[in-house]
């Protein structure tokens, strides 16, 4: 759908002059075509060509932790227009394990997903989920929660697992520190992440089939971020992620680090902002120049009956919806909204897990539709107007606009009305 619109749109003046469709490196199984750039903000709409399908950016990537997306079949996910989703290396490395997945022709084969997959390095989960982890220059050491065995996740090991998973995009192992930590540990982690990036690049057995992304670290320290950007952008990697954020830091710090990163990242490579998925954050960070996002929130919150809507969220289980015969969002075209009312879903929550699946489908649809609308507005050179309308719908009045979003948008020449 998006591609028809693009063909009809006038070619971007900047884009055609600079011959944007360039192959990054002969070996890299990725190419990025910038379809349009917003003349006001840093937003861009791109076609990201990956081994299993072309991805239209900006894109939200749903998270399928264990090789499945929370009760949704791969056909349903594809039906919603999803072109790329995530798998978690830590979970899949534990169960069913890389050997088994390799036997199943990779994670694509194991879960029978025909589109693209992105896998994380496993490091983040380890630091956040496993208590007994210790980070050394070798890697992240932890005790398996299943059999208590001590395991070392080195950069080489992480890449080896991800090579077995066969994902289209792999993430480097990085030294993750909480975004609220300050001091020398942040600097150490930044430098170590650079060293680990080199080890990951060297360890990738499938550079012709699998793209390895670097992860920019440096906490909330602008100088460290810049240093990290300077070093990492010298490596020949097909894409970059902005890491170490979205971990409880102040939003004022968050957006400044995001915009600093996109300022220094090469224009012709994709930028992936990790762990971001709230609608407002998505729209603002697209304006700051990010292309890819992921977050467990939309699917996790769905299972508690929270449906995402243009005016925030709707708690289907709340009593006020027991007799509400409207769909979740009357303007939504997802399979749930086309067929079911809030009242029916409210009652179904008391009777069957299918209620969760209905909300999960709606929420994924909401995220993907939001990003498609963002993209279309960029292509049609009306992204600033889109932001205005989006914010107006999301908040009851302008004085409820979060100040960080106002500031962030001001920095890219959008003055919220």
């Amino acid at each position, binding site marked *: 759908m998006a591609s028809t619109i693009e063909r009809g749109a006038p070619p971007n003046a900047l884009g055609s002059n600079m011959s944007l469709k360039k192959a990054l490196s002969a070996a890299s199984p990725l190419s990025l075509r910038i379809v349009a750039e917003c003349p006001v903000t840093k937003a861009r709409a791109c076609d990201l060509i990956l081994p299993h399908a072309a991805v239209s950016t900006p894109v939200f990537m749903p998270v399928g932790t*264990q*090789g*499945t*997306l*929370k009760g949704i079949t791969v056909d349903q996910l594809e039906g919603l227009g999803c072109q790329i989703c995530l798998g978690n290396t830590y979970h899949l490395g534990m169960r069913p394990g890389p050997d*088994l997945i390799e036997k199943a022709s990779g994670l694509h084969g194991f879960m029978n997903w025909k589109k693209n997959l992105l896998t994380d390095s496993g490091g983040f989960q380890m630091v956040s989920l496993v208590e007994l982890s210790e980070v050394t220059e070798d890697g992240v050491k932890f005790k398996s929660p299943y059999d208590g065995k001590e395991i070392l996740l080195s950069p080489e090991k992480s890449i080896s697992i991800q090579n077995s998973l066969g994902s289209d995009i792999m993430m480097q192992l990085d030294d993750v520190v909480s975004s609220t930590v300050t001091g020398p540990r942040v600097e150490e982690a930044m430098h170590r992440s650079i060293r680990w990036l080199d080890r990951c690049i060297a360890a990738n057995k499938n550079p012709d089939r699998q793209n390895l992304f670097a992860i920019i670290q440096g906490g909330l320290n602008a100088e460290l971020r810049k240093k990290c950007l300077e070093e990492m952008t010298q490596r020949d990697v097909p894409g970059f992620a902005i890491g170490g954020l979205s971990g409880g830091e102040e939003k004022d710090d968050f957006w400044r680090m995001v915009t600093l990163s996109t300022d220094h990242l090469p224009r012709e490579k994709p930028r992936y902002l990790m762990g971001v998925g709230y609608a407002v954050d998505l729209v603002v960070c697209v304006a700051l120049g990010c292309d890819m996002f992921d977050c467990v929130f939309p699917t996790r919150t769905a299972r508690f009956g929270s449906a995402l809507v243009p005016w925030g969220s709707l708690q289907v289980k709340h009593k006020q919806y027991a007799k509400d015969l409207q769909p979740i969002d009357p303007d939504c075209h997802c399979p749930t909204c086309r067929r079911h009312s809030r*009242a*029916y879903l409210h009652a179904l929550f*008391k009777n069957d897990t299918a209620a969760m*699946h209905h909300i999960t489908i709606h929420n994924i649809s909401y995220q993907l539709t939001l990003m498609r609308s963002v993209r279309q507005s960029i292509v049609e050179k009306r992204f600033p107007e889109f932001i205005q309308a989006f914010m107006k719908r999301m908040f009851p009045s302008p004085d409820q606009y979060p100040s960080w979003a106002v500031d962030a948008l001001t920095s890219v020449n959008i003055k919220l009305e």
Partner: protein
Amino acid sequence: MAGSKMKLELSRVVQGKGRLGVLKGLGRTGQHSLKIPGCLLYTHFGSVPHLTQDTLHTMRDLPSVTQVTLSTIAEHQEVLEEFKDGFRKFAGLHDTVLYCSLHDPATSCPTGHTTNKTVSVWGSGGRIELTAAKFMALQRTIQPDWYQSMADGETWLSDTSRKRVRKSVDRTLAHLDECLLVHKNSQEFEGAEILGVVEGGDILEERLRSARETAKRPVGGFCLDGFQAGSMDQALRTQLINAVTKELPEDKPRLLQGVGQPDEVLACVGAGVDLFEAFFPFQVTERGCALCFSFDISPDPERAGSAPSTVLELEQERDAPVEAQQNGDNMVDGQTQMTSFEMNLKDKRYQDDFRPLVEGCGCYCCRNHKRAYLHHLLVTNELLAGVLLMIHNTAHYQGFFSALREALATDKLDLLQRRVLSKGDRPGGKSE
């Protein structure tokens, strides 16, 4: 009596084997039909467990009759009253016949709450006591095409006295008369049918009395209640059902409640039952299992041999006799007990088994996924396990009913019986 277009056309009646035919003119507009012997679509509040309409409709040839239960709907009476257009539309079900039963066949409900004038149902919010008037008011808001008449079915406990059984028959007939009176005098029930309920526990003369008396009333068909799993053994069940169905008119359908295991279905069809509630595939799904029994009666000698296409290869099962025993019929999973008609996919042996659940099965799950993936989903407690198993189990169960009809039509019931009962080769199977 409200004019229903329902008509049972029997194409074959084999004494002691079963009745083959089609129920035509179903639904208030009469455009649906249902083949018998057959089963209904089992749902929770109008949704097949775990499934959305998208995943449900990956299956073709679904039963044209959807079963909902009053126990789950009763607490939502207010919203249905406001909605006005009936439960079918409320639940987003468009093209189906709606049948409303009193209880959920997969949930046993507490006893001791029935009185002369009331029965109780249990929803998520607890017990709801129904008089015939309240029962009919509910049906008026639900607007089903068929509904089970209010009944006192508390006779299934083994120590039920003769006196209690007689009382249940009397009360059930009295409830039926009250329901029928409201039914025929209300425009809302135009085109709808009441199914009369045959009670009588395990006492033959009470069963006969219940059947004869119910058959005198203007009902659209019959529910045979009190035969559910655990209430009696199959020999007694067959004997009683045989006696009951002889008392019922030929031209009206008989729905047996609470029985769903394939071997029991075969025996009960032989005794004259037409319809079953399809809760069995759901129970199998809830214990993480997949139906895998064979019902292949195709004439192809290779397929009919020891390795039928619908069942997993035998040699693999012989590889793991110890595990097969551990996961046999003794396993209690907090749910109902595993039967010999299914395989336990949580079993470690499936962890690297890259075959479909059942070779040759055309369901969405078998076309797209392998046992190893289902095993993974189950051990990681992923919601998709329930979705995929429910699809397969429903499809497999429908396939069994289709084979049953074919067997009736082509005189192959004995072969089908042998296929279905060929235990001992499957995981969890008893050796006979």
